[in-house]
């Protein structure tokens, strides 16, 4: 019995060792990111590993705010993220509700089409999306940044699954009371869908805030750059000459903060989102 105890103690210890080691591997890059954004350039170059800036300097942030278009990118990112998230939440829940509850002709075929759409790899649509935006004269506009992203097949799927799990009785009571389809949806069903709506809001927020590839085929004017696009330009473009790491890392920190905050606050919804995304497969 005693041997067994010491063995389980050893395995507990080994378990923690592995967990802590990987927690360091997964989190230390962020420590490096934040620490080096507050270093001076020579310090960042000389001692990249150290988590303590020596001396502490905010010149990276000053430069990124004053010498780059970062404030503009930030504004564009906020605008695009709000519009895309609001659009996705509304349109995906409408479509999800219709597919789950309203018995209209072509419903099954449409749902199969939505599943089929989810299977198309986004990268493949790159150049094709540009062709359509260009053809309609939308290329290089806010519309091009927002409109193609405003609907997401996976979001429709998540909402449909959710509405199917809600008992029909409540809606039927509303309908018998004479509420129309829209009224039932808006004031009875949607308020019940809060957990699913939060999940969808969070996935949409994270997806649109981080979106990069779409901006490459949608816009080219620097005035329309979002944060990821601006940072990518900063790194690979003309400004990328020279190292300037504190500046670049500072910009990267600013791009990471909103998602990090939301992640800490709404962690369980993130987890749910990841697993619901898995179920579609």
């Amino acid at each position, binding site marked *: 019995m005693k041997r067994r105890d010491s063995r*389980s103690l050893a395995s507990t210890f080994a378990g923690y060792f592995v967990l802590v080691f990987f927690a360091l591997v997964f989190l230390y890059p962020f420590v490096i990111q934040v620490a080096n954004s507050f270093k001076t350039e020579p310090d960042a170059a000389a001692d990249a590993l150290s988590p303590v800036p020596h001396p502490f300097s905010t010149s990276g942030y000053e430069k990124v705010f004053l010498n780059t278009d970062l404030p503009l990118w930030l504004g564009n990112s906020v605008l695009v993220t709000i519009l895309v998230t609001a659009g996705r939440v509304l349109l995906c829940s409408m479509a999800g509700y219709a597919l789950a509850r309203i018995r209209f002709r072509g419903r099954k075929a449409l749902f199969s089409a939505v599943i089929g759409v989810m299977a198309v790899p986004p990268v493949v649509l790159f150049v094709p999306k540009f062709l359509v935006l260009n053809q309609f004269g939308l290329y290089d506009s806010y519309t091009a940044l927002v409109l193609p992203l405003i609907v997401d097949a996976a979001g429709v799927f998540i909402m449909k699954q959710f509405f199917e799990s809600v008992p029909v009785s409540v809606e039927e009571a509303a309908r018998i009371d004479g509420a129309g389809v829209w009224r039932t949806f808006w004031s009875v069903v949607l308020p019940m869908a809060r957990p699913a709506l939060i999940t969808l809001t969070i996935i949409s927020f994270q997806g649109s805030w981080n979106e*990069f590839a779409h901006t490459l085929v949608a816009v080219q004017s620097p005035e329309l750059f979002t944060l990821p696009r601006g940072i990518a330009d900063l790194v690979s473009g003309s400004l990328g000459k020279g190292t300037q790491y504190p500046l*670049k890392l500072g910009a990267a920190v600013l791009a990471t903060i909103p998602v990090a905050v939301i992640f800490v606050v709404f*962690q369980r919804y993130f987890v749910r989102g990841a*697993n619901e995304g*898995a179920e579609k497969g």
Partner: protein
Amino acid sequence: MADTVADTAPAPAPAAPRAPRPGPRLSAAVRENIAGWLFVAPVVVILGLFLLLPILMAMWVSLTDWNGQGSPFRPGVPFVGTENYTRLFTEDGLARQDFMTSIRNNFYYVAIVVPAQTVLALGLALIVNSRMLKGKTFFRAAFFFPSVTSSVAISVVFLFIFANSGAVTSLLKVFGIDGPQWFSDSRGVLHLLLGGLGLADPDNPPAALTDGGPFGLSWWEWLSGPSVAMCTIIMLVVWTTSGTFMLMFLAALQDIPVTLEEAGMLDGAGRRQRFRHITLPLLKPTLFLVLTLGLIATWQVFDQVYVMSQGNPAKTTLTPAFLSYQTAFRSFEYGSGTAISFVLFAIIVVLALLQRWIMRDRDPARRTRRS
């Protein structure tokens, strides 16, 4: 009371027993049809415009030599048939060489990333799930966090970490290792390995391998393995995606009833045996899902290549996705660029189907054996 009635009633037939009202009202079925289509209309229109239509347009453009001027449908656009496709496979030239190089690079990338992230995700999930350990929520969050952050921001961080004076180089120095110059090192890892084992000299490769090979690349070039520069992207991606897959494994592990584990314990099965005969078979659907999602995602690697390497050094981090972008938007050969997209699409579809077929082939066999 209404609740119980509604719950037991079959789902269809909503509000059927309604008294006919006077006036020109539409029937309930017609109204349902209209409402349904109105609800899905925005999604249908936008997916149609930005998903279906692009694919159809791209099919046309891939058959032309459109250079981005004006509309691709105007009469003057040269129609070239399937030339944009055949050039990738049969014609000796730069287009084929670049394309095949990108396929080679991405192949090695997939071959390392998919197994690595799957094993890491499963391992982490098993440890996090173990009942003896505390702090589950924290570790789960720590491992998952990288996958929710911006791919661009994180690529910048890795650029810095792997820079010549960066963290990894200093860390290796602590252990007395002289690290490579990660982003400018185009040497293939397999070449280095062959050299290290004394099987072939990378500076003077065997003529038998350099003389010929399929699709315009020599056997020696096909056998390069990922370049050192590509390895940094591989590490980055394994690091960012493992957390998501860990969550999937974790969810599946939590669905396994504890009684099953206990039954195995009572039967005297050791930990390893229990894993092999109880846990692993129950995780199989999740394992296949993770492999499939991984396979699909890894053939699409783009953001990291764009930010970290732009296909350099010596085109060893070029991937089909990036090549397609580069061909269309930098060389203005839109026909060629879309053709590459479609070939990539075909590769992904074929591999996904292949994997499904392998999975289907095995499952019934297992089931019959058991019964």
